[in-house]
């Protein structure tokens, strides 16, 4: 008996190669052979879809370890990332709480306000007419109070995304983080939410990308970034019993009057700002923005079968869901901090991390949502129940299934595939890992129609080029700038829809030219802080002819693809250009008579002599690489 069990355990360990057992892992099948794909082709496809691009030698590595094992490892997402961690070490904001961030990374207006409050600058010394003085004032406050400009926070956010995408060994985790962030989009373009985006990705998205959908839904719903971005933080019921009682409380009334007097004193610009904010909030009642989008964009989909009445009712259920005050020494913060558990409860306040539920702003009347009755008196729990109902709705299963299928399989997925994924969603309580496995087990994933039919987004395109060339990225922000030029300013998409996941959104004339320009700039070392070593990429071997260069680099950059036709075209052109070149050279010969002189070998790389010739040699190889990266084939994944 003992023996039997130990053998069983033993064989289990052996078969899973040190990877902990996962309830779904044993069911990975991958019917690529049936689709007529070789192991190598299948590995390439898998890497194209579940990573940010194939690195040289990676297909061989995946084939060697087994495709199933690779996917399993990616689903575990626990590979060490020492190299990446080193690159991220200097980014202090990555580990900061929202509270630290809001008090540390400030907008210019907040910095000035702080300066005035701490009497570092004088209120009357300010005018927005003298920009030089304004900048000086900002610099002075930052110096003396130790705060930083918010742009620095954004820079770290953008940089970490680029670096993780390029260097993380847990690629699928990064791909899914990108996908789910976009699904639950928030944007740096909105001032009120920008300071929270760093934590949003880290705390609301990242931990859930392999988990159950409903947990991610709840985490995003309660996160300050989303609460501010879609205005739920402002959504209040004007008709609340507790609020009325408090209104009538004489002590509170006196306090409020005092506060109003103070607010009406606009002699300080700080007060003007506060007054404005208070006035804005005061005019708000129910705000349906989040309620609408949580149904339309996050869960059920626009045709999911809800009505405008449902939207309003969901909004009512979520009244009072707001952000915990976080400005240090702010009156709201002091107020909340000084309340005991008992006092919090009496006032109907619930604090959970940075989330604050205000019972006194919650709509306590009965609601009917999607035909289900909510009695109205469950406070915070009512909202949670509503979100769970949305998450488990059949429309949600179908909506999420469709979105995943579009991202990972094809722009036009089959109904059969969607059905399979949707039923997996329902059987597993919306388990994302299980859905990924169901996807690769489906023949559609491997079909000839799906192969290379997805167009990379600008971000995917840029990162895949960096991975394919083993680029050293010292200045990730440069990559972000290029992505913006190509049409994907990551973290800045204004609408809650997120970037559309459609080829024709990415591919337009301006964006396409910039993709080609990116290829050329990368290969010719014209992106500051991004370096590629093409010679090393080709095993330190210099191609001896244009044909050879084309062949070698096509194979390195576009493995497992049929590049023959492209090579033929380009070779013809190179030869064609050759003839023209000879004429041009003949014409220019008198001007440049050391063109064909010997001895360039010796001066190569030196500052003097034939520096131009050396540059051109490097350029020729680089140009081939640039053209391959900018080519149509490289846009596909």
């Amino acid at each position, binding site marked *: 008996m003992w023996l039997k069990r130990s053998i069983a355990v033993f064989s289990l360990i052996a078969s899973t190669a040190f990877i902990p057992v996962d309830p779904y892992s044993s069911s990975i099948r991958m019917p690529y052979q049936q689709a007529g794909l070789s192991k190598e082709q299948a590995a390439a496809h898998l890497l194209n879809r579940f990573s940010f691009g194939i690195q040289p030698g990676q297909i061989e590595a995946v084939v060697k370890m087994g495709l199933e094992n690779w996917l399993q490892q990616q689903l575990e997402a626990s590979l060490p990332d020492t190299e990446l961690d080193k690159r991220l070490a200097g980014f202090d904001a990555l580990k900061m709480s929202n509270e630290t961030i809001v008090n540390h990374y400030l907008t210019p207006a907040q910095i000035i306000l702080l300066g005035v409050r701490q009497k570092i600058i004088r209120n009357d010394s*300010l*005018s*927005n*007419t003298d920009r030089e003085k304004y900048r000086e004032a900002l610099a002075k406050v930052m110096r003396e109070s130790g705060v930083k400009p918010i742009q620095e926070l954004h820079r770290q956010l953008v940089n970490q995304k680029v670096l993780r995408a390029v260097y993380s060994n847990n690629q699928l985790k990064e791909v899914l983080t990108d996908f789910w962030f976009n699904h639950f989009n928030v944007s740096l373009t*909105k*001032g*009120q939410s920008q300071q929270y985006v760093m934590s949003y990705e880290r705390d609301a998205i990242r931990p859930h990308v392999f988990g159950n959908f409903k947990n991610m839904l709840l985490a995003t719903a309660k996160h300050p970034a989303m609460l501010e971005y*879609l*205005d739920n933080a402002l959504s209040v019921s004007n008709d609340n019993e507790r609020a009325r009682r408090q209104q009538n409380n004489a002590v509170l009334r006196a306090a409020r009057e005092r506060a109003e007097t103070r607010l009406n*004193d*606009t002699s300080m*610009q700080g007060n*003007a700002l506060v*007054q*404005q904010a208070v*006035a804005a909030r005061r005019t708000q009642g129910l705000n349906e923005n989040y309620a*609408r*989008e949580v149904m339309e*964009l996050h869960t059920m989909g626009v045709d999911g079968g809800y009505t405008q009445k449902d939207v309003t009712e969901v909004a009512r259920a979520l009244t009072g869901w707001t952000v915990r005050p976080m400005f240090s020494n702010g009156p709201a913060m002091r107020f909340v901090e000084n309340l005991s558990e008992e006092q919090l409860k009496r006032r109907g306040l619930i604090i959970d991390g940075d989330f604050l539920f205000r019972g006194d702003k919650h709509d306590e009347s009965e609601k009917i949502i999607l035909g289900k009755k909510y009695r109205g008196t469950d406070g915070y729990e009512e909202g949670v129940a509503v979100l769970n109902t949305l998450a488990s709705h059949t429309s949600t299963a179908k909506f999420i299934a469709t979105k995943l299928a579009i991202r990972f399989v094809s722009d036009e997925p089959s109904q059969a595939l969607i059905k399979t994924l949707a039923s997996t969603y329902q059987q597993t309580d919306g388990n994302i890992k299980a859905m990924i496995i169901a996807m690769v087990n489906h023949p559609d994933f491997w079909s000839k129609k799906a192969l290379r039919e997805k*167009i990379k987004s600008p971000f995917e395109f840029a990162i895949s080029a960096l991975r394919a060339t083993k680029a050293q990225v010292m200045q990730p922000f440069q990559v972000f700038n290029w992505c913006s*030029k190509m*049409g994907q*300013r990551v973290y800045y998409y*204004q*609408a*809650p829809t997120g970037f559309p996941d459609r080829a*024709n959104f990415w*591919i*337009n*004339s301006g964006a*396409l*030219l910039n993709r*080609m320009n990116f290829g*050329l*700039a990368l290969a*010719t070392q014209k992106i500051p802080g991004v370096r590629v070593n093409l010679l090393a990429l080709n095993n330190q071997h*210099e191609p*001896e*002819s*244009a044909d050879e260069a084309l062949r070698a680099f096509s194979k390195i950059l576009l493995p497992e693809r049929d590049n023959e036709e*492209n090579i033929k*075209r380009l070779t013809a*052109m*190179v*030869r064609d*250009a050759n003839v*023209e*070149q000879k004429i*041009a050279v003949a*014409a220019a010969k008198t001007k440049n008579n050391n063109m064909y002189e010997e001895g360039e070998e010796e001066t190569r790389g030196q500052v003097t002599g034939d520096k131009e*010739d050396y540059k*051109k*040699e490097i350029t*020729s190889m680089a*140009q081939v690489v*640039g*053209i391959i990266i*900018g080519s*149509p084939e490289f*846009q596909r994944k």
Partner: protein
Amino acid sequence: MIHRRAFMKSGAMALFAAGFGGVPNFIARAAESGKIIPPYKRNKVLVCIFQRGAMDGLMAVSPFADPNLKTLRPTLYMSPAQTQGGMLDLDGQFALHPSLQSLSAYFTEGRMGIVHGVGSPNNTRSHFDAQDFMESGTPFNKGTTSGWLNRAIGLTGHEATPFSAVSITNALPRSLYGDREALAISNLQDFAIQMQGNPMAGNMAAKSFESLYDQTSNQLLNKTGKESFEAMRILKSTDIKNYQPANGAVYPNSPLGNSLKQIATLIKMDVGMEVAFAESGGWDTHFNQGTVNGAFARNLRDFSDSIAAFWKDMGTYQDDVTVMTMTEFGRTAHQNGTGGTDHGRASCLFVLGNDVAGGKVYHQIKSLAKSDLEDGRDLPVSTDFRAVFSDVAMGHLKLKQTKGLFPGWDGKALNLIKG
């Protein structure tokens, strides 16, 4: 060895398609084969200028005759009498800020109309939300995937071209999100295959790319590739860098001036542009707004002079072009404690074009008495921005229909465009 070196030299050089006389080979060749002729036709153009930050409409076009204004704005108040002719009294009720002088003639000539008390039915005072709603054109729905200008392009019934809709900005504005191709470009000169410091190599690369995109089996890449190179050729055929404005027009050297200059360049190239988009910033005047002089006046002068230069430059194209400005909301009727104004509700906008029934301030404003203000503090929105936008788009761009332009809106359009 010789073989290798030969590649290194000739191969390297081969990859620079050398051209004689500075004309890139592929262009010369294309010209020979007649391919360079622009396939695009001249269209009506709507130029939209978004004043981000919320312009103080009560100062730009001041209801100076309303006695409440002086009370509400003791130090910000201006009147034609006070400014000694610096303000143009439009109709005894409203007057243009002195900074708008360069545009005032167009009002007098009846080519510029002003709509006052315009804004969104959604009372948000958040810049972000208000801009978002104005640009999507759906004031109560954040999830609208497209922007109203993109939908307008779709409703012209014309074939899409790379330049149908152009925004002179780094990123595509929300107004142009959508199914129709729209180009966001901050500098037209960037619309090219570029190899820094090596233009010849760039030409060769361009040729290679063109050939590759020509043969790809992916239809979208194939079609867009063709369009890109066509568009690139057209832009290259004009000396954008040394563009000379017509009629002695001088653009201010400001972001808006430069944007409008580039838009003018494109219009004169007849590339089939129908919608152009530019931005103007600096309108969020919470502090020390100033009156005849100061931050607001300076910004407004740049705004006015940029548009006036553009209009002068348009010359014979004026019949085809209409300019419309917009801003997300107005500012408080009263001034605040720091010599500025805070976020309010309605503002005003300008429409300039030969087909505009101008010379008139279109408005439904009652008064600035507290009882007539929204929440007792703001100029209320008496004209829905969609009533203006839909009329201008319908009338000037000759949309086949306006159904779908502003989903969920069935209000009455203003009658601003003649004919």
